[in-house]
C-alpha cells in the first residue's frame, strides 16, 4: 500500500486553513478543557473544604443536591439548545432567506423558537425527571412552586443565550455553529451549578452573581439543605434575566442589521 505523506499533508492543510479562517473553531479547542478543569476543580475544592462527604448524612445530602443540580443544569442547557437547534435547522437546510423574505416578523420567529424550546424540553427532560425518581429517589417535582420559579429564571436565561447565539449565526454563518453546543457551558464553573458561590475565588464571585443561574442553584441548595425558598435570590435572578433578555434582543437586532449590511444572509454556509 502506498501511503502519500503529501496527500496526508494536503488534508491537514485543508483543516488548518479552516481553523485559521474560523476563530470560533480555535476558541472551541481551548474552551472545553478550560471549562472542564474549572468545573470539576471547583467541585473538588467544595467537597474537600466543606467535608461534606465525611459529615453524618453528608453523602446523601451531597448526592441530593448534585442530582438536583444536574437536572436543573440539563433544563438550562436543553432549553438553550432547543431554541438554537430550531434556528440552525434553517441554516443547515439553506432555508433562511425563504423565512426572512416571508411576512414572518423577527418577534414571531423568536416566539416560534421559544415554543420549540419548550416542546423539546418536554420531550427530553420530562422522562429524565421520572428516571431520577425511579433510580435515585430524587423528585424534582416535589419542590413545587420553587421548581416553577427556578424554571422561569433558567428559561429566560436560556432564551437570552439562544437569541444571542442565533444572532451570531445570522451574522457569521455556520462557522460559528459550535457556539450552539458550547457557549452555555461557561455557566457551569461560574454559575455555581454544583457548589456554592463561596467556593469560587473572591474575585470571581461578583461575576458569578451577574448570572441568573447562580441564583437558581443557590436557591436549590437553600431548598434542599436549609429547607427555605430564597425568594429574594430568585427575584434578583429574574430582574437580571429581564435585563439580559432585553440586551440579547438588541444584540440580535444589531447582528441581523449587520448581516444585511455585510450581505451574508444569502450565503449562510461555513
Amino acid at each position, binding site marked *: 500500500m502506498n501511503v502519500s505523506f503529501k496527500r496526508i499533508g494536503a488534508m491537514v492543510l485543508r483543516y488548518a486553513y479552516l481553523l485559521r479562517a474560523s476563530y470560533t473553531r480555535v476558541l472551541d479547542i481551548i474552551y472545553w478543557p478550560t471549562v472542564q478543569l474549572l468545573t470539576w476543580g471547583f467541585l473538588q475544592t467544595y467537597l474537600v473544604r466543606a467535608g461534606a462527604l465525611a459529615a453524618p448524612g453528608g453523602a446523601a445530602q451531597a448526592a441530593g443536591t448534585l442530582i438536583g443540580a444536574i437536572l436543573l443544569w440539563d433544563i438550562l442547557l436543553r432549553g438553550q439548545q432547543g431554541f438554537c437547534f430550531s434556528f440552525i*435547522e434553517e441554516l443547515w*437546510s*439553506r*432555508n433562511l*432567506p*425563504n*423565512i*426572512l*423574505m*416571508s*411576512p*414572518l*416578523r423577527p418577534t414571531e420567529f423568536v416566539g416560534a423558537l421559544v415554543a420549540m424550546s419548550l416542546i423539546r424540553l418536554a420531550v427530553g427532560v420530562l422522562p429524565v425527571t421520572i428516571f431520577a425518581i425511579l433510580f435515585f429517589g430524587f423528585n424534582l417535582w416535589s419542590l413545587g412552586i420553587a421548581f416553577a420559579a427556578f424554571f422561569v429564571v433558567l428559561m429566560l436565561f436560556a432564551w437570552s443565550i439562544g437569541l444571542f447565539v442565533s444572532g451570531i449565526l445570522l451574522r457569521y454563518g455556520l462557522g460559528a455553529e459550535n457556539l450552539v453546543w458550547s457557549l452555555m457551558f461557561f455557566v457551569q464553573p461560574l454559575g455555581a451549578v454544583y457548589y456554592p458561590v463561596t467556593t469560587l475565588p473572591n474575585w470571581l464571585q461578583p461575576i458569578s452573581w451577574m448570572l441568573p443561574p447562580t441564583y437558581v442553584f443557590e436557591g436549590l441548595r437553600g431548598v434542599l439543605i436549609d429547607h427555605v425558598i430564597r425568594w429574594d435570590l430568585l427575584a434578583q435572578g429574574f430582574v437580571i434575566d429581564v435585563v439580559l433578555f432585553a440586551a440579547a434582543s438588541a444584540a440580535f437586532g444589531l447582528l441581523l*442589521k449587520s448581516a*444585511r*449590511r*455585510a*450581505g451574508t*444572509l*444569502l*450565503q449562510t454556509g461555513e
Partner: protein
Amino acid sequence: MSQNAVAPRPTLAVAGLSKSYDKRRVVGPLDFSLEAGSVTGLLGGNGAGKTTTIGMVMGLIEPTQGSVHAFGCDMSRERYGALGRMNFESPYVDMPHRLTVRQNLRVFGMLYDVEDLDAKIEQLAKDLALGDFLDRQTGRLSAGQKTRVAIAKSLINDPQLLLLDEPTASLDPDTADWVRARLEAHRRTHNCAILLASHNMSEVERLCDRVLMLKDGTLVDDDSPASLLARYGRDTLEEVFLDVARGRVDGAPA
C-alpha cells in the same frame, strides 16, 4: 392624456441603488422600475451584480445608498407592508430536505396566510405537475423536481411581484420551457411584475418585454429585446450579451 393625469404607481421602484463592500462599489447606482404585468430581465455575466441587486430588492442585503419601494412601501423601513404580496426563487436557497413537498408548501402557505391552503396546494401540484412526489421528502427529489417545488413555493401566495434568480438553470430544455409557460400564465392571470435574472438568452427573449444589462455592477443598457437586437445589429440576445460583456458596445446608447 392630460398633463395632470397621475401615472400609476410602479410595482417596484429602484432609485439610486448601490452597494459597496469595504468602500469598493459592487453594484450601482441603479435606477429602474417595474410596472404591473411586465417581465424585466436582469442580464449580466458572473459577478455583474445580479444576485446582489435581487438581494437588495428582497431586503436581504442593505443598500449602501438609494432606495427600493415595492407597492409604495420603502423596503428598508416598511418591508412587512409588501412582503405578503411578493415572493422569490433562487438557486442559492433551498427548502427543508426532510419535510415532504406538501409539508413545505403547507408551512409557507401558513407564513403567507394563504386562505384555503389545501386547495391551493392541490392547484399548484396540478399546475406544476408535483402530484407524483407531493408526499415525498424534498431532499430526495431530482434537481429539476426541486426547482419546480421552489417555483410552487414562490407562487403560493399569488404574488404580484416575483423575483426569479436563474429559475430554469438546472432544468432540461423541455421542463424549462414548460416552467416558462407557467410563469407566463401567472403573469397574465395575476398581472404580476417579474424581475428575472438569467443567463439563458432565449429565455429572456421569450419572457421579457424589457432587458436591463449589467456589467461590473452598473447598468449599461435598458431596452426591449427587439430594440436591443436592432440597435446592436445582432440576430440574438446572446450576441448582444457578448458584445456588452466584451466591451464591444457600438450599439449602446450614447
